[in-house]
């Protein structure tokens, strides 16, 4: 019988090995999928028992905090946003039932204080409770207020303000805004609202850039050596491109002019020809350098940050797709750009040709005040040389001083910028009216020692960029400049 007993033991060992196998599968190999399973509300319930860290503005004021309800095993926390709609974008919301969005989502790990396997062993030994870390942002409440207030007076749209030398996002506003405190009770209503208040237009709306794109064309022309600031191109009132006339405003004939005059007056026929001279592959190359055709490297989850570029439906076009280069050069064609992308363009020129990664967060602080992590500004690319950036700045100063963007001027401060007014007749989202424009202003100040680069845009307006967007730029820029 002994042989059979040994065989029986072997069989039982095998069965127990199967148990270990299944346990490893559930607890380790398949754990991620199980935690993400919609039938599993444990991760959410656990998070609700954790004190999620606060989100703070640059000045230390509270943007989001968790307040305790109940106590003992009934203890749970709920999120409160004392500033209401002001930081609805880009902070988003975090609730057990409704989930998370935007900054609350992308910085979830720090806010929850998710610790490593080994960290948790240490916690077990010390009996420490997991507590989330605070995340301090770069957002300036005064600038944010100016941006959102300006938009609410002008129309739907977005504003992004970036510190050029660091990429710190000082303000990011999207109109219409939403109050995250209302999400638990009104999510469906917010979600189905035709004005899409939950959409962060600053990072997700591919707007036609209009003439603001001429900054990209000019950077490509100068930096590739196609032109110098002195090069003149003849700019007639109208030019036939691909069988269609490409016209200046009021068909104004400028004759042979150089970059400064062309940018100051936003001369379409001049930039159309420049685009053709630069050539398709070079222009695409410079777009890529500025971050087009890629997800901007901002600290929001990629699904909530849109790409910019030339769109065929949902797809981005590359070289060789038969695009109208002259019209791309002046910001028409099928260009779609996010306000964030245009703020990056302005910031790259402002920072002497070096584009920094835009970041909303600044540092992560433990509840005891110890700083765990600090933002180290990082370069994303060098779209142009310092020389090109300086030349372009000079031209952009002309725009504000004496050209199409005079409403952006700040007394006593040199401002560099570029207006844009994309005509979007029949735009369905605006109600299909004939005189619907996308008004833009991008720029930075002070021109020689820039502290802020801003893109401001208003959708579905009957006005020009200078009338509707430049004043917002000015108000936000003034707020930031006066604050420091």
């Amino acid at each position: 019988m002994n042989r059979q007993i040994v065989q029986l033991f072997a069989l039982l060992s095998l069965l127990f090995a199967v148990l270990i196998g299944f346990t490893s599968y559930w607890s380790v190999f398949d754990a991620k999928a199980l935690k993400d399973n919609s039938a599993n509300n444990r991760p959410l319930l656990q998070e609700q028992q954790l004190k999620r860290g606060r989100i703070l503005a640059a000045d230390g004021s509270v943007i989001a905090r968790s307040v305790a309800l109940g106590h003992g095993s009934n203890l749970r926390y709920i999120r409160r946003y004392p500033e209401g709609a002001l930081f609805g974008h880009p902070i988003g919301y975090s609730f057990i039932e409704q989930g998370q969005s935007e900054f609350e989502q992308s910085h979830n790990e720090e806010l929850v204080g998710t610790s490593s396997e080994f960290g948790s062993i240490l916690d077990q030994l010390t009996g420490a409770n997991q507590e989330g870390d605070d995340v301090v942002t770069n957002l300036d409440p005064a600038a944010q207020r100016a941006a959102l207030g300006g938009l609410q007076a002008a129309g739907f749209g977005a504003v992004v303000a970036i510190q050029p030398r660091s990429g710190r996002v000082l303000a990011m506003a999207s109109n219409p805004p939403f109050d995250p405190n209302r999400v638990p009770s009104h999510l469906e209503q917010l979600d189905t609202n035709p004005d899409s208040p939950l959409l962060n237009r600053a990072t997700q709306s591919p707007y036609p850039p209009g003439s603001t794109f001429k900054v990209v064309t000019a950077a490509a022309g100068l930096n590739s050596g196609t032109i110098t600031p002195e090069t003149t191109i003849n700019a007639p009132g109208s030019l036939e491109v691909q069988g269609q006339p490409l016209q200046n405003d009021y068909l104004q004939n400028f004759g042979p002019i150089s970059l400064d005059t062309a940018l100051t007056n936003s001369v379409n026929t001049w930039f159309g020809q420049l685009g053709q001279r630069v050539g398709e592959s070079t222009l695409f190359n410079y777009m890529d350098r500025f971050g087009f055709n890629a997800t901007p490297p901002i600290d929001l989850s990629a699904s909530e940050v849109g790409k910019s570029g030339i769109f065929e439906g949902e797809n981005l076009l590359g070289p060789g797709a038969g695009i109208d280069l002259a019209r791309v050069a002046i910001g028409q064609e099928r260009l779609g750009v996010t306000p964030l992308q245009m703020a990056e363009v302005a910031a790259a020129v402002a920072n002497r040709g070096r584009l920094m990664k835009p970041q909303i967060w600044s540092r992560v602080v433990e509840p005891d005040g110890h700083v765990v992590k600090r933002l180290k500004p990082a370069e994303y690319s060098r779209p142009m040389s310092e020389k090109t950036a300086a030349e372009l700045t000079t031209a952009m100063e002309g725009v504000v001083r004496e050209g199409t963007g005079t409403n952006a001027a700040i007394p006593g401060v040199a401002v560099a910028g570029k207006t844009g007014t994309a005509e979007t007749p029949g735009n369905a989202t605006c109600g299909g009216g004939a005189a619907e424009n996308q008004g833009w202003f991008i720029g930075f100040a002070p021109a020689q020692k820039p502290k802020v680069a801003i893109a401001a845009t208003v959708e579905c307006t009957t006005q020009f960029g200078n009338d509707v967007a430049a004043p917002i730029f000015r108000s936000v820029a003034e707020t930031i400049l006066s604050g420091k």
Partner: protein
Amino acid sequence: MRSARNRELVALVPVALLLTAGFAAVFAQENARMGGLSLIYGAYFLAVCLATHIYLRIRLPQADPYLFPLAALLTAFGLVMIYRIDATLARDQANWFVFGLVLFALTIHFLRDYDVLERYRYTIAAVGLLLLLSPRLPGIGQQVNGAYLGVKVGPLQFQPTEFSKICIVIFLASYLREHREVLIVGARRVLGVTLPPLKHLGPMLVVWGASMFMLVFIRDLGSSLMFFAAFLALLYVATGRFSFVVIGMVMFLFGAWFFASTVPHVEARVDIWLNPYKEAQGNGYQILQSIFAQAEGGLFGRGFGQALITAPGEPHTALLPAAETDTIYSLIVDELGLFGATGVILLYLLIAARGFKIALLASDGFSKLLATGLTAVFAIQAFVIIGGVSRVIPLTGVTLPFISYGGSSIVANFVLLALLLLISDRSRSEEAVTARRTALAMEGR
């Protein structure tokens, strides 16, 4: 020859340490400070274990030294887990543990000559069947989750299947000891299949069939699986005929199919096992939560006291239903991770290894078969419930031996352990006597 007991004493030290550390961890979690009470608990537990150890020293000096410490380790572990769920339950369980040890001692005292069991095998079988039937008896029977598992006599509540398994194993071991020769010799080949002689198989089939019927009658599927597997294991060990096992399996599959399609309770259990997500909030809730809890564990677990058992806020939904009984293994995975859970499984395997070793060393057939049967039924019970909550097999409610909350379970398993130690002590003593005789004979030459 005191070395066996000395090894037992040494092996008890880690048990006390684990218990103290475990209670301290739970205390730290609950009260955010180390309570002196955890030390008292540890000391109390250790004192009870030491008393048992001294008793074993006197009564069974030669018995296997590792079985008791292993069982104590599992019990200590279970106490910590149960304490972490509900302090009141842990106090009950601690009392049951002491009561289990009393029965353990009584078993050793009165069944020193356990051959007596053989004489009363039909009585024991009848008691086993009656125990199985009792939950359906009016007045004392109780229904839990569609199964009739409990019996309530006055304030006392117990699960008769836990004791019944011992009775049935004793009967099977005794019967097979007597009839194994004829079962082997009398086997005939029919159409290339070796069939056991029905005449000798008859009484056993009757008892076994009756027990299976009772189990279906009381809807205790986990136990029926456990009884069946133990029966096949014993049959195989006794006869060495693999074909008998195959025939048994075929019978089982046929029976399983029959019951799965006729008894709704069985059908539902199998269906939940295959498609738990179909009724994630209904019938599939327990197994899904069990697996979700395991997913929280990872390699090292979330730590004692960290797992969610009930949802915070109102209403108090159970996140891990029956955490102190059926799904306690999932709670272990959640809080101690894959490593902790593997440790628990290895402890069961170690107990099985010691139990089979006792069977190997035993000199007479009844001892061998009894040790094999008791060990097998114990190990299979652990497999049925761990496999159930890990979705290896359909989830059915049996207790995790020594760990799960439940007086009947812990008391019955200590009786089972006592029987194993009795067998062990006898075979080792005989061995020692034989060795001494040989030595004397050598000297005399």
